């Protein structure tokens, strides 16, 4: 067990190295921040001083090595455009992203799980078919388009919700719903097929033979066994969303991690982009690690591994 965790951690670190190296190179290839961030009137000396201040006059691999060195000490550098610690710029947006992600996740789980379990139990009925059509549509409609249509109808036409920004619960309704649609479709699809498979197992027949109610069988026997893959999907999605739902956040001008990284990329604010990407990658890796631990808790058979 401990070895397994150690191995996963090592791989996680390797992944982080690759991610930062790729982003670092990309940012470097894209041009000189000294020309983007300084005013056009700046002299050659000004630019040289700027580069020297941020160590940009050194070779790329030296810059990367230095960056890693500072990173190990928890120093992500200063934001080039805000002149504040880059990690603070990134962390500042985390609550907004968490709020949106958790709301969408909760909505998706509350809708998809009961609906999918019911569909699996009543396989082939009208309800089951309706759900399958819904999942097909849910996985087809682009989130950002749905967001715009919601703004069009619910905000512009009927003035039910504010069109953009973050504030109270009303602000959250549309972005969370738009984001939840795809998640709901995915979770419903996975849950339904896992439940159908679980319901075909021998222990379900045994339970039925013992005279348990169908409801009891579905909830206590089948769902319990179908839960592992469902949790996997939920976890991976949550991990992915920590990077901010870039498209949803953009459409609704939601001040989350996604829009932050997008802004920083467009401004070529190197330290902030890197801090954001590292944050995202760490979140994703942590979620993966937690999932692996969770498996062994939920499924004793995996403990022997």
């Amino acid at each position, binding site marked *: 067990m401990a070895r397994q965790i150690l191995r996963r951690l090592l791989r996680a670190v390797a992944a982080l190295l690759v991610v930062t190296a790729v982003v670092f190179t990309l940012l470097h290839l894209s041009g000189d921040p000294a020309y983007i961030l300084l005013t056009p009137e700046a002299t050659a000396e000004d630019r040289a001083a700027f580069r020297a201040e941020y160590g940009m006059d050194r070779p790329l691999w030296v810059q990367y090595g230095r960056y890693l060195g500072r990173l190990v000490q928890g120093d992500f550098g200063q934001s080039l455009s805000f002149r504040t610690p880059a990690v603070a710029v990134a962390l500042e947006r985390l609550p907004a992203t968490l709020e949106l992600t958790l709301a969408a996740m909760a909505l998706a789980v509350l809708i998809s799980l009961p609906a999918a379990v019911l569909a699996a139990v009543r396989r082939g009925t009208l309800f089951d078919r309706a759900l399958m059509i819904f999942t097909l549509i849910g*996985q087809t409609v682009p989130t950002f388009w749905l967001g715009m249509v919601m703004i069009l109808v619910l905000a512009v036409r009927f003035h039910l919700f504010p069109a953009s920004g973050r504030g109270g619960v009303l602000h959250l309704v549309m972005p969370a719903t738009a984001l939840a649609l795809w998640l709901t479709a995915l979770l419903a699809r996975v849950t339904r097929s896992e439940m159908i498979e679980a319901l075909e197992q021998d222990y379900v027949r045994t339970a039925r033979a013992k005279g348990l109610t169908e409801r009891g069988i579905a909830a206590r026997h089948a769902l319990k066994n179908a839960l592992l893959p469902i949790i996997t999907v939920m976890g991976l999605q949550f991990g992915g969303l920590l990077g901010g739902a870039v498209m949803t956040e953009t459409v609704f001008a939601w001040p989350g991690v996604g829009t932050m990284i997008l802004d920083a990329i467009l401004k070529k604010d190197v330290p902030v982009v890197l801090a954001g990407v590292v944050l995202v990658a760490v979140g994703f890796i942590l979620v993966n690690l937690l999932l692996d631990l969770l498996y062994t808790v939920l499924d004793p058979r995996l403990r022997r591994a």
Partner: protein
Amino acid sequence: MAAQDGGEQAGVLMGPATVSPAAAEAPATARPAPRGRLAGLVGGGLAILLIALAVAALADVIAPRGYDDQDLAFALQPPAWAGGTWSNPLGTDPLGRDVLSRIVYGARTSLLLALGSVLIAAVIGVTLGLVSGWAGGRVDAAIMSAVEAQLSLPYLLFAIAFMALLGSSLTNLVIVLVLRSWVVYAQLVRVSVLSMKTREFVTVAVALGARARRIVFRHIAPNVIAPALVVSSFQLAELIIVESSLGFLGLGVQPPTPSWGSMLSQGREYLGSAWWLVTFPGLAIILTVLGANLFGDALRDTLDPRLRTRARAPRGRFRRTLKETS
């Protein structure tokens, strides 16, 4: 589906694009296509795709106007049934360009890009998957670590960074799209090669003294065509969405060339006043993606009846086997 928010990283291994190793093992001629509903779906999906392709190919004939014919006197005309005229059935944009014509020409851009990228990604991914699965050892480790490295990048953010920083040229767009898909092929093909390596027909070929290249390309490769075809269908849907997402952010095809994503981007600025600018390109995307997804779903069910209506999630161990050498 990674372009959909949330699927960003995880999507590679799931969503409708997931084809389990079981699917990979499915022989190409598993069973004649079932009739009825399923065949209808295959037909439906295929019909939508073919119509979209025909529209793209015949854009010059179908489109009532050129995609960049501006007429400022007729700017922001609503669709014909909403107060506009039939000369611009779906209305006009702020430059007075015909929305219908731009959607028709946009099909050319969006579909060609997605289709071309899927093809390139398939060739690269299948080849690397074959090599990786057959060669094993260091070659396998190298290719698979490239796959893993890429999967640990949040794809959409990476794509945005790539396009924003290196410039939104057509070449870069294709590179970004290919990068999204090759991994899926490589993983899928590798897993099926691993399972086929121990099968009798391979052992016999080896025993008869066939060379590695001949075994891989003559005996093994034909068996991965079917699952690769299924994946291609889903990847087409995926890449259309990725392309439109990038276009929406202003990082895709540059004006005046129309693509469905860039039309949405423009429409967003007129959300309050011109609903048709956002609605119709979006519907074009949805319809095409739906066609590709339906086709993929039906194709998978046809090629491997065991997988019917199963969108299986990778389990803990299974997920690991997919990523590591099993």
